[in-house]
């Protein structure tokens, strides 16, 4: 595919990596905050080709990983109901709740269906007017327009049997929380390219200014990732603080204004609990009053849920970039993809799963 293979060019990528090695003169810590980028760094083996001075840490950019335990338990409770067809993106099926996951709800006879697009869930609601169809609307700003369109469509089509279980999270408040934390050692940022395709990158210059952290809007192919890193390191070396766009083929400063408008008409900001981190103010979106009828949390009685995390899991520290997976005592032993203790090991973009799948041990090549 034309716009994929060009950005996987080995010679060009290696050329940029060489430049990165040549230009770096002191240690820097750079964070990326997108599960897709975490996955790509490790899957292409780029993280091992980086100069020793550069420490790449992974932020809480995996919407699957950060969806709160309470919400997962609510999803499971709703999915187990006989009158419900529970629809979800594939990523969520194996995430452990307090007792079990959505996969085991399906094994017990629950009607849990994987959909590729939220519009597929709307179609299921049209096809089954006698059943309640719930869609698990997780995601960052990238997925928000799609999720929001499903409920806008449902309303337009008069589908009363459709509802959303919303777990939308926003990147800028998370960046404030991370960069504003006393323990933060993050000096540079790669911003999530597709979040910026939707939102633009007008939200970032004030954040970069406030914390003195240069940023580069970065894509997902090997060339994009190294280009973004090189850009940030060049700024760090020069002492510049700015926000650059290293993904200009898919991102503009203003972003997709049509999408932003629909989001403003469908959602309103709210506080949200990030699994492993805690509540971050204004970091989420929920359905606004015009769409209250379609809110699954209001439609189904799932108030009385007791959630409990594993005591061993350090996903929170990993999601904040304070530790990397190989520093977790349970990594690869008590906690593996087959029996995960936390979401970061389940989701294929979770840092722990990515490290396990592509790296396995701290001492491997």
């Amino acid at each position: 595919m034309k716009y994929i293979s060009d950005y996987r060019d080995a010679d060009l990528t290696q050329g940029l990596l060489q430049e990165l090695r040549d230009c770096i003169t002191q240690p820097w810590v750079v964070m990326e905050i997108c599960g897709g980028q975490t996955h790509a760094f490790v899957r292409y083996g780029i993280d091992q080709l980086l100069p020793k001075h550069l420490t790449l840490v992974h932020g809480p950019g995996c919407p699957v990983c950060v969806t709160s335990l309470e919400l997962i338990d609510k999803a499971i409770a709703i999915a187990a109901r006989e009158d419900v067809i529970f629809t979800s993106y594939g990523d969520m099926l194996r995430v452990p709740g307090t007792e079990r996951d959505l996969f085991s709800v399906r094994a017990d006879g629950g009607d849990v269906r994987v959909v590729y697009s939220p519009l597929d869930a709307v179609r299921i609601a049209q096809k089954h007017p006698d059943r309640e169809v719930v869609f698990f609307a997780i995601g960052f700003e990238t997925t928000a327009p799609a999720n929001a369109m499903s409920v806008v469509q449902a309303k337009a089509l008069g589908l009363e049997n459709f509802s959303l279980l919303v777990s939308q999270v926003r990147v800028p408040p998370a960046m404030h929380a991370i960069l504003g934390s006393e323990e933060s050692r993050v000096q540079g940022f790669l911003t999530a390219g597709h979040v910026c395709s939707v939102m633009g990158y007008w939200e970032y210059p004030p954040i970069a200014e406030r914390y003195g952290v240069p940023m580069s809007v970065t894509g997902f192919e090997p060339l994009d990732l190294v280009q973004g890193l090189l850009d940030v390191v060049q700024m760090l070396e020069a002492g510049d603080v700015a926000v650059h766009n290293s993904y200009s083929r898919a991102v503009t400063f203003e972003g997709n204004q049509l999408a932003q408008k629909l989001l403003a008409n469908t959602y309103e900001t709210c506080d949200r609990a990030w699994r492993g981190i805690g509540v971050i103010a204004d970091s989420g979106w929920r359905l606004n009053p015009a769409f209250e009828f379609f809110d699954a949390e209001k439609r189904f009685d799932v108030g009385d849920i007791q959630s409990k995390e594993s005591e061993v899991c350090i996903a929170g520290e990993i999601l904040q970039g304070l530790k990397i997976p190989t520093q977790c005592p349970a990594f690869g032993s008590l906690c593996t993809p087959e029996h995960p203790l936390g979401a970061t090991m389940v989701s294929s973009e979770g840092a722990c799963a990515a490290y396990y799948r592509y790296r396995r041990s701290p001492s491997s090549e």
Partner: protein
Amino acid sequence: MSADSIKMEGSVCPVPLQHEQKIVVGHGSGGRMTARLIAQRFLPAFDNEALAKGDDAGVVELAEAGRIAVSTDAHIVVPLFFPGGDIGSLAVCGTVNDLAMVGAQPRWLTASFILEEGLAMTSLEAVIASMQAAAREAGVTIIAGDTKVAEHGKVDGMFISTAGVGWVPPGRCISGAGAQPGDVVLLSGTLGDHGIAVLAARGDLEFEVELESDIAPLNSMVEAILAAASGVHVLRDPTRGGLATTLNEIAFQSGVTIRLKENELPLRPAVSAACEMLGFDPLYVANEGKLTAIVAPEDAEQALAAMQHSPYGSDACVIGQVEEGPAQVVMETVIGGTRIVDVLAGEMLPRIC
């Protein structure tokens, strides 16, 4: 087991209607309807003496002395029919290939059917015809079988279970434990065709590809490879779990590291595109007409040529090598990095991240 000739029908007659359009529970009862089903549908297609005798087991003569190989498999696929094949050809070729991978010459198969009440007779006929065509191509005969009918909804149309028996010529010793450092890893063709073709045909994810399943019997390719090269250490067909899972099994059985080159992996654009879209890794997608051969380096050229000149092997290529090291599979990525290729954990699901 002669065909029943009574044709009386109607509410006064105790003999059931001659159900010709759909499978009903009576077809599995073991009585007259079962007999008629076997006589009219199965016997003419799987035309051989052992089966036609109608005894509880098929008896055949093994002319050569030596070892026999036995394999067994159950086949479940939705939908039953898809571009490039169906559950019937899948069942026959899958069994033939299991035998071929240990160096056996496949001879006889059994086929046990669990049919769903309500299955269209034309579907059963089509599957039987497909099995006979595959069996003929592979040079095997189906000498024993069974038919049961399950209630509507308990089975997805039909399930087929097979066993295969083959003869292993003396001196052949092909096993997953045979890979040695220095060996060359060969692959007979493009990855992921079957898995993606079936997924597209299933329709849930609603995408279209111009792609057919690669279901094929590989026993003649195996014979060609073994005739051309003496140092063939491992043969395996990467079915469920894909090439990654298969190579990991071999790495563990042999206690070696297998190093792949991502650039060398043959992929059809349709498979590549579908995998990108869904977030799948083609290394984990099922194949049903491909094999990987691990051969001594001095034999690699001949083995590869034999594969390329076989039916179904025109895209055969070298994809890696075997090294000393921990039991694992590693891969040099397209940009020159390295990563570990793990076994498949659970089911592959489309992802958003």
